[in-house]
């Protein structure tokens, strides 16, 4: 750093320009696949869209009308909904424990550590795990929607717990202390002060977990299997968008690939919708990380 007050040499200027150019080029390069995928999703996916695409189920027929994706949409909503019902209370519960009670105790740190470990577990492992303990062991039948929901909830749980912990930590201690000083017991302080204040952040974290789970294929492949028809029975096999796409891709027939694009666009739109809500809620939150 000898260059104090000496004019910047042209070589250094050129290096600077080149480096800026390269980083910009690489940034744009990262966006090329995004635009290509979006382009194909819109081009091929919109081509598949029609009224009957959303109002009929896949027929499974080898020739002729392949049918739509109604049962897949309904199945994804049910399975992910059930997974949310399982994962969100548990995840927030864990976070509450860590922040309000466990703090830096050895047990709390162990829980934190293992939740971190869980975040890194590949989703296929959760599918395999549920496949072994619930499907092969034939607990209440074999493949079933609720088993897929549990596999997804295992995936969501650490995401919800981690993000909730961060949000709960953002709440100023003064708020807690003033509630306690007013004579409120701890549980009341948690339900009347902590949770309401953290609510938008908790919702955002949960929505992001939902967005992540909705696109997962591997955990469902092992646990829910595949059917064509519409079903709302969580004790049975169920269709879902990711599995529908996966099946159509592997069959490689033009009309099925077309449906796969349509289903993919639908799935991406659903995920974007959930992510968008998460962002809007986050924006309205008073606690900004």
């Amino acid at each position: 750093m000898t260059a104090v007050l000496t004019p910047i040499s042209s070589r250094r200027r050129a290096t600077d320009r080149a480096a800026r150019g390269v980083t910009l080029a690489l940034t744009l390069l990262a966006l090329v696949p995004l635009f290509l995928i979006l382009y194909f999703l819109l081009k091929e996916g919109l081509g598949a869209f029609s009224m009957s695409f959303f109002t009929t189920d896949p027929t499974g027929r080898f020739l002729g009308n392949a049918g739509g994706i109604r049962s897949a949409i309904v199945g994804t909503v049910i399975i992910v909904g059930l997974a949310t019902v399982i994962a969100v209370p548990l995840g927030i519960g864990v976070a509450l424990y860590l922040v309000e009670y466990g703090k830096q105790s050895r047990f709390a740190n162990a829980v934190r550590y293992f939740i971190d470990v869980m975040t890194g577990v590949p989703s296929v492992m959760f599918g395999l795990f549920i496949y072994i303990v619930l499907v092969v062991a034939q607990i209440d039948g074999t493949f079933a929607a609720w088993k897929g929901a549990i596999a997804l909830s295992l995936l969501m749980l650490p995401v919800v717990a981690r993000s909730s912990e961060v949000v709960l930590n953002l709440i100023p201690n003064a708020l807690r202390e003033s509630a306690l000083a007013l004579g409120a017991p701890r549980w009341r302080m948690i339900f009347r002060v902590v949770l309401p204040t953290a609510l938008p952040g908790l919702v955002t974290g949960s929505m992001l977990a939902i967005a992540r789970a909705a696109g997962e294929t591997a955990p469902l492949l092992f646990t829910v299997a595949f059917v064509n028809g519409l079903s709302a029975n969580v004790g049975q096999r169920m269709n879902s968008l990711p599995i529908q796409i996966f099946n159509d891709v592997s069959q490689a027939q033009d009309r099925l690939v077309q449906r796969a694009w349509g289903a993919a666009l639908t799935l991406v739109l659903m995920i974007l919708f959930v992510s968008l809500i998460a962002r809007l809620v986050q924006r309205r939150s008073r606690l900004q990380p």
Partner: protein
Amino acid sequence: MGIQNEEGRTLRLQRFSAAAVVCSSLAIGVAACGSSNDSSSTTDSASAQKGGTLNGAGATFPAPIYSEWAARFKDKQGTTINYQAVGSGGGIAQFTAGTVDFGATDSAMKDEEIAAAKSKGVPVHVPTVLGAVTVSYNVNGIEKGLKLDGATVADIFLGKVTSWNDKAIAALNSGLTLPSTKIAVCHRSDESGTTKNFTQFLAAYSKAWDKGPGVDKSVKWPTGTGAKGNDGVAACVKQTDGAVGYVEQAYALQNNFTTASVKNKEGNFVAPTLPATSAAGGAATPPEDLRFSTIDGPGADTYPIAAVTFLLVYQDVCKAGLDEKKAGLLKDWLNYALGDGQAVARELQYAKLPDSIKTMAQAKVDGLQCNGTAIAG
């Protein structure tokens, strides 16, 4: 948006999903919610509607005809057949593990596979239709059917014959001008009855094949691209110039593949056609347990890689885990396959069973039991 579920009840989507969430929060693990396809009591238009669902998994070879049957069977008696085409290996495995109500394979279970299924009972093989394993190719410049014999096909799949104008191919096709395109082999990557049947044919005409990769549902391929299912191989052939693969006839027709005429036992080159496949069935003499194969069968007009395909059920379906209602539905499904289904077969270029074999198969179905007594229905 009003949607109709399987029983014909109309639900409002909003209420439906709300109900599903409420329901699911109450009933984790309990199949208590909106049981749409297990209740046969709902009102239906046709009187013969039985409803219910059967889950099956197995071979991709007959998947086209099974899915067609499933659609018509559903129209006929309202029963949903969920057939997952996962390959014969997967079909036998899931059948043995009891994760499906019926299995499907196009190579009969081996003795050790039957032994492995013992805890559930005695597996019964119900042959359904015959189909042709075509040698399909996608080569610019060869529009007409090539003639190939077993030894040459084996050499292609061994990687010894590497271009389409190789001497071995030219010798069988005098008069055709062959391009010098490189051969790209497409084969199955999953455990497949189609592979077993195809390799059985290759091994019959090639010592090198017999000693090398051998005959099995999956083998160690010396060359080529692997793909899952008949559909996967079809996609592989379709995407690659110079590709050759083995797929069931329906897949070849669907993709407009050119298929080779293959030299049979009598020395005639026979194209994979419905009569040539039927001829293979007519020449077969199955044993009592119906575990038979029609590969490399006798007869002047017989297509040599014609294969029979089976549905798998347990002799006592209830002891194997099905309830009485499902047992009845399963019997209906098998009766359909051997009855009305046979006439549907030709629409997708499958050959129906010869009468003698059909009679034997029907006897097996009639003999199925539920907890020791014949299944009503």
